[in-house]
């Protein structure tokens, strides 16, 4: 194995560990703020994986939107609703065992799919800057979803404001 590959593996493993650990914290922490921090950690880990995958734009969007925006939203929501958080209650509901089983079953199925399938993999080198291409495709091929998503954002904003405002 060449050194860059080793380093890539190292980067991959660290980031994967960060993502998974963050996820575990996010779903197990009792304190919601800590759960949210775990979520952020996981986001960061996934962003790191995107870097390893050479999808830097998505990576930076991940940081900008998930870490910078969505997590703020979550944190604010936690603060707004935390007044009556009952400490005596466990964070898990009564059917957590069932949930665990479901998650494990699904995981084994997905594991089978992930490892057992012959994905037609091709080793392609990414040459040059893909962002102009991305912009171009957004404006041409993906024009419809692009415009639709702005409507969606408008509608979501209006709706969320109506629902949440005092």
């Amino acid at each position, binding site marked *: 194995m*060449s*050194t*860059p590959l080793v*380093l890539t593996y190292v980067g991959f493993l660290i980031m994967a560990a960060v993502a998974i650990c963050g996820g575990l914290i996010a779903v197990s922490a009792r*304190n919601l*703020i*800590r759960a949210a*921090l775990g979520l*952020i950690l996981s986001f960061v880990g996934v962003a790191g994986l995107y870097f390893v995958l050479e999808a*830097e*734009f998505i990576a*930076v*969007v991940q*940081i*900008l939107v998930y*870490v*910078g*925006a969505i*997590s*703020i939203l979550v*944190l*604010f929501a936690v*603060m707004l609703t935390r007044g009556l958080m009952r400490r005596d209650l466990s964070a898990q509901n009564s059917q957590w065992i069932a949930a665990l089983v479901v998650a494990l079953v699904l995981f084994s199925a997905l594991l089978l799919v992930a490892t057992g399938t012959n994905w037609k993999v091709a080793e392609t080198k990414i040459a040059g*800057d893909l*962002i*102009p291409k991305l912009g171009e495709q957004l404006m041409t091929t993906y024009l419809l979803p692009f415009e639709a998503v702005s409507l969606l954002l408008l509608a979501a904003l209006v709706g969320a404001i109506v629902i949440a405002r005092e």
Partner: protein
Amino acid sequence: MDILNNLFVSLYVWVADLLHGLLGGLGLAKDAEAALVSAIMVLLVITVILLWMVLMVLILIWLERKNAARLQDRVGPNRVGPWGLLQPVADTIKMFIKEDIVPANADKFVHTLAPMVAMMPAVLAFAVIPWGKGMQPVDINIGVLWIVAVASIGTIGVFIGGYGSNNKYSLLGGMRAVAQMVSYEIPQVLTMVPIVLMVGSMSLVKINEAQSGWFGLQWFIFAVPVGPIAFVVYYLSALAEVGRTPFDLPEGESEIVAGYMTEYSGMKWGLFYLAEYFNFFIVCTIAATLFLGGWNGPILPPYVWFILKVYGLILLGMWIRMTWPRFRVDQLMNLAWKVLVPIALVNIVLAGLGLPIFKTIGF
């Protein structure tokens, strides 16, 4: 002249060669050796930058206090060292040895984490800043967005700082700070778009290069009308985002004690403080790069030009701080959403319209 222009680049190459020579004896594989050398070099560069930055901040603090004193007809620090030059050093030492008081009910882990998280974006942002020609640690094609993205991590540090203290003033201050920071993030992000549009790349190096014409004076701030508008919007919102007066509501002592920093002391407080100055410095470097031509300029070496521009912007910020009263919270938010965001949006459209026109007239 050439030597002077490429001083740091040459230095880098020389050290790297030295390292190669030193490591050659280890008998590593060729690519492993190269990787090791560049890793060490990068770490060196980071260390140099950070040390340099700490020094800069110390100077900045001194400068600010002196300036403030001058403008307010006082003397300012004058006991430690000549003209009080060593005052910041003394402050630093104090910070190190000061007891760290954590409130009893606080979330200790989060409390400690907060200043670290607040510090991180500053360090990450340095990765892409071009200090001079060939003097950027790394040139990535998402440079501009990278800066914005990592800056947004800072808001989390502020927030959890407020939360982790378990003090309502901290919490309120933290929430306010975050609300302000995110509000100003928007005009800041939007106003950089015209520049990216004109350059056709988000790489800060490319942006620098695009401003190199006309004997180094083809700065975007001169690209009327888009450039100056974008610059003003950027500068104001950047000041606000880093919480400089007159936008320092989150830590407005008279309103909510010291904001999210109320319960911090010692080194943790020091980190917040340091991060604030780092961020201030960084936004000035970005402003310099995007609008003032970065390292471009006639005669003087690029890195000198760069530092000069950055310092100019910093002094401007200080001047604003000293002279303007603090904004009210409603004015603050109004400014962001009702003034800066619409202006920035219009600016983008202007840039979009203007670019083809400029292209056709061969600008």
